[in-house]
């Protein structure tokens, strides 16, 4: 049986991408799998009684060492902000390539806490900062120092002690360019070093809270229970900075989605599923219900999505545990077709993620295909003709061609880079100034413009001739030839519509990171939790692969 890959014109719509969930393909899970046999060490821990100071953690295998250098600082409550305009944070981190020397640490002490205005070197791989959830941090310290464990109810509401407000890599602020490290086998997967940083920061937060509690009341203090630690992750506040990334890296985006779609296709093509695998799948779905019921948010938009998801997952469980027979041929294909007919987008993608759980043999080879050598596809094949280009656009962007950009609501927003923080922003072009400095992220509109232009151009004209007088369309001509080869490289939707929900773009990327419990704070930023339920470093050598559902 040959199942077709799902249609990009359905899957690459923003509402569908904004319904994606973490899976076995997610980067934090593949990071844990890759580094499970590395040696973890706490190399330095010099904090004062308030928890301020420096700490170093590392992962080591043979001659290779990655070290997280942490700087915990005192800041006032009124200085603490998750927004990118902040200039101080409770802690700042960098992942150093190798073992940092004293000189390195001195240099990093001056630069890392400054974040965007500091300068890193090619010896540093990633950079981040984080703020305490003050309410939770203080409660945990108070409890531990008085000899008892913190309130689980309170911890469950938040899910972390710290939340990062940015994680930078790949050459930002002087960090090492990807080309320097891309041939290392252990990081042959996107964002692996960013995941390592976040994972090690999580351990730092546990050590710091234990340290402060102990020094506050040495005789009475107890350590934070390991089971509780395991159920805490690292929060993350994410804004629009992430959105342009997925537009600006089309082949990378394609590879992420293509691997997900290939996994689904291959799972649907399995004729007979053994009982062990079907039981594992059903268990994960069943256990995942508590991930939905413990998903806290005040966002009405998300609450509605969660409500529908919960309703549909329960409906699915009734179906799969009742009338459905796993001994039938191609059971996952039948399940998928049922989902399409009976459930919402959020539920379809939720169950698609869980379908991957039993199938290591399908998933693991795909993980290695999720990076991209983007330079290879940059040059435009200018010897091709307008006829070719027209055919590509008609085939690959059919829905986009039907959007009327002369209507104000379809052309309402513009993306720009703010001068003070050099970060992407979105504004109303009819109300705000700056649309003349618009970033090239309105791909749908520009593709439509290109199409209109080529309708008036001779079909045997070659692209090099066309570009002579149409330089303003060069960026989308390049993209059209990329999408010809990479079907999932383009968001098949309007990113400048009045109705665009930017967090759908963030949600897509965060789901591939492995984030849980998306908590939108507006249509432009959200909070998430990473590594909640993940094994602690000393458990990595032998951990439950389905920890996401079984914690």
């Amino acid at each position, binding site marked *: 049986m040959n199942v077709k890959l799902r249609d990009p014109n359905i899957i690459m719509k923003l509402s569908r991408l904004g319904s994606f969930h973490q899976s076995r393909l997610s980067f934090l899970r593949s990071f844990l799998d890759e580094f499970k046999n590395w040696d973890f060490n706490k190399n330095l821990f010099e904090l004062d009684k308030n928890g301020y100071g420096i700490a170093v953690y590392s992962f080591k295998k043979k001659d290779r060492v990655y070290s997280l250098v942490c700087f915990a600082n005192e800041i006032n409550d009124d200085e603490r902000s998750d927004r990118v305009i902040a200039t101080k944070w409770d802690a700042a981190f960098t992942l150093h390539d190798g073992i940092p020397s004293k000189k390195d640490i001195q240099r990093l002490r001056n630069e890392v806490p400054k974040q965007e205005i500091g300068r890193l070197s090619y010896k540093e791989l990633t950079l981040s900062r984080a703020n305490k959830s003050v309410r939770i941090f203080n409660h945990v310290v108070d409890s531990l120092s008085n000899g008892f464990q913190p309130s689980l109810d309170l911890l469950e509401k938040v899910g972390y002690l710290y939340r990062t407000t940015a994680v930078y890599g790949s050459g930002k602020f002087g960090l090492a*360019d990807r080309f320097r490290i891309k041939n290392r086998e252990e990081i042959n997967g996107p964002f692996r070093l960013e995941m390592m940083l976040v994972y090690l920061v999580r351990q730092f937060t546990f050590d710091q809270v234990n340290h402060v509690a102990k020094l506050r009341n040495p005789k009475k203090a107890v350590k934070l229970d390991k089971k509780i630690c395991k159920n805490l992750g690292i929060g993350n506040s994410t804004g629009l900075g992430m959105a342009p990334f997925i537009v600006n890296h089309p082949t990378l985006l394609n590879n992420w989605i293509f691997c997900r779609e290939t996994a689904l296709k291959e799972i649907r093509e399995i004729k007979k599923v053994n009982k062990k695998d079907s039981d594992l799948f059903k268990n994960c779905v069943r256990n995942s219900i508590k991930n939905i019921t413990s998903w806290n948010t005040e966002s009405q938009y998300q609450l509605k999505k969660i409500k529908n998801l919960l309703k549909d997952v329960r409906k699915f469980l009734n179906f799969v545990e009742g009338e459905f027979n796993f001994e039938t041929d191609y059971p996952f294909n039948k399940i998928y077709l049922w989902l399409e007919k009976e459930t919402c987008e959020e539920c379809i993608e939720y169950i698609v993620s869980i379908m991957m759980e039993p199938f290591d043999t399908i998933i693991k080879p795909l993980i290695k295909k999720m990076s991209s050598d983007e330079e290879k596809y*940059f*040059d435009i094949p*200018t*010897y091709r003709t307008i006829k070719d280009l027209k055919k590509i656009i008609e085939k690959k962007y059919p829905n986009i061609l039907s959007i009327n950009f002369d209507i104000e609501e379809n052309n309402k927003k513009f993306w720009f880079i703010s001068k003070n923080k050099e970060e992407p922003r979105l504004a109303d072009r009819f109300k705000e100034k700056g649309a003349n400095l618009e970033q090239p992220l309105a791909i749908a509109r520009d593709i439509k413009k290109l199409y209109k232009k080529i309708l008036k151009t001779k079909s045997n004209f*070659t692209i*090099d001739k066309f570009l*002579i007088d149409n*330089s*303003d369309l060069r960026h989308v001509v390049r993209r059209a030839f990329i999408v010809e080869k990479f079907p999932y490289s383009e968001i098949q939707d309007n990113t400048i519509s009045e109705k665009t929900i930017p967090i759908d773009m963030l949600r897509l990327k965060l789901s591939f990171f492995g984030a849980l419990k998306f908590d939108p704070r507006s249509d432009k930023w959200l909070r998430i939790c990473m590594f909640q339920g993940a094994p602690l470093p000393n458990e990595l050598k032998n951990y439950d692969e389905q920890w996401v559902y079984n914690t």
Partner: protein
Amino acid sequence: MRSLSEIETTSKRASRAAGYSWGISEDVGKNIRLLELFGLPGIKYLDQYLKKKRKKKFEILKLINRNNKKINLAFCPINIGVSFLDQIKTIEPLKKIKFDEIAYPILFIPFLSRSSEIIGKKILLKFGKNEFLFNFNQNILTNYFKKQFPIKAQNVEIKFLENKNNFTSSEWKSLYKLSEKTFVDETDSLKHGAAGAGLTDND
């Protein structure tokens, strides 16, 4: 030290700010990254050129010909670079191309390097006593070692080099003979048993 990623992004944005389209600015970003990766002063001369461009209208050229002559000012290295790159398959049969004057020739260099990769041929650039050999966008060989690059190149000549060996036939034979010392003489028994197919396969 600035990373290549920062170099590419800033060059792209600066080119856009100087009036180039986003698509061309993307190419310039990649080019300056390439120059800096090869140890050539891309940032320095892009900055100078974009400032100069505000005051002077360098000439543009839509179609590259065998002989390209300016009317007033020198050619814009970015404009002719994009044309050269885009039209590379059409102009390659010309074998030799001349420009009488190009402003800031260093900014034209990465376009030639990338073109060399596209056509799979080495490209030689000459102006005055200066020579640059572009090897499939893998590296650039040059006899130009001064810190300052000229801000104008006159009588520029570009040659597409045929794919030929860099060594003589006798040099090859000599080395090959040495390499044969790693081979094993085949006995009758090895002829029968060490390969897959039979000795006669007429059926």
